[in-house]
């Protein structure tokens, strides 16, 4: 064998080849066949997006239902407000209305008691 120092920084190819011969196991064709059949049965690999999409589907459905419910409630409230009794007069207006003196007195009484 070629003289090499154990300190050599480079690869000792002669030693490497000898090691490769030692490490080349028995029955390489059998090994390759076994590995080939193991590789043929690899489980299907799902991407993180697939996993996320699977997880997201029910969540998206629930979120859409919740959003629909909230939107429906908001629209219903909005539609209901104009239907409030038209005859109701805000307190500020009632206080200014001289023709309703009785009401003003009642309001003042209430305010003084506070």
């Amino acid at each position, binding site marked *: *064998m070629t003289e*090499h120092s*154990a*300190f050599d*920084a480079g*690869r*000792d*190819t002669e*030693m*490497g080849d*000898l*090691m*490769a*011969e*030692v*490490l*080349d*196991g*028995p029955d*390489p064709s059998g*090994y*390759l066949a*076994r*590995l*080939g059949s*193991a*590789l*043929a049965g*690899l*489980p*299907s*690999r799902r*991407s*993180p997006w697939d996993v996320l999409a699977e997880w997201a589907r029910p969540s998206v459905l629930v979120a859409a239902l919740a959003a629909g419910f909230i939107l429906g409630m908001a629209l219903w409230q909005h539609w209901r407000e104009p239907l409030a009794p038209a005859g109701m007069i805000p307190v500020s207006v009632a206080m200014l209305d001289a023709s309703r003196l009785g009401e003003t007195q009642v309001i003042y009484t209430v305010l003084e008691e506070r």
Partner: protein
Amino acid sequence: MTEPDLATAAQKGDAEAFGRLVMSYALVARRVAQGILGNWDEAEDAVQEASLAAWQAIDRYDPSRAFRPWFIRIVANQSLDQLRRRKLRDGEELDEMTPTLTPSPEAMTDRALLRGRIAGAMRLLPERQRTAVTLFDGEGYSHAEIAAILQVPEGTVRSYVFHARRALRKALVSLVEAPA
């Protein structure tokens, strides 16, 4: 199909392309696993497990770089993992493993005799030295790459390689000097 094409196809879920990639390095992979584990059956298991791990992690592989170092690194890590598990399971002292591959002297040619000596000497090496010298001299990995696999400083890898080489050469020299 070139290697980057196969890798890209594998990343898109093509198991056949992935299989072709792995099969191109299957023998190298078994050598590395055998260098670490010192047992053919376990080495084969380690390569199969590593292939599965590589398949699951193929998204993290950069197809612009060579597949071999990436895959062999997974094989080496898998083998080291398996070795640790075996140690825990058996309480086995691997550094004192005895050679099991010694053909009868009659059957040995000079080359076979050398191989027998190397095999015996390798089995007597401490696990990390054996791994380092297998990857360095056997497979051409750099000190830095081996340091990354073994998770030790580069200087430590140099020391492992040095001691392993010294032991292997001692085994060969004793063969040359032995009386006929």
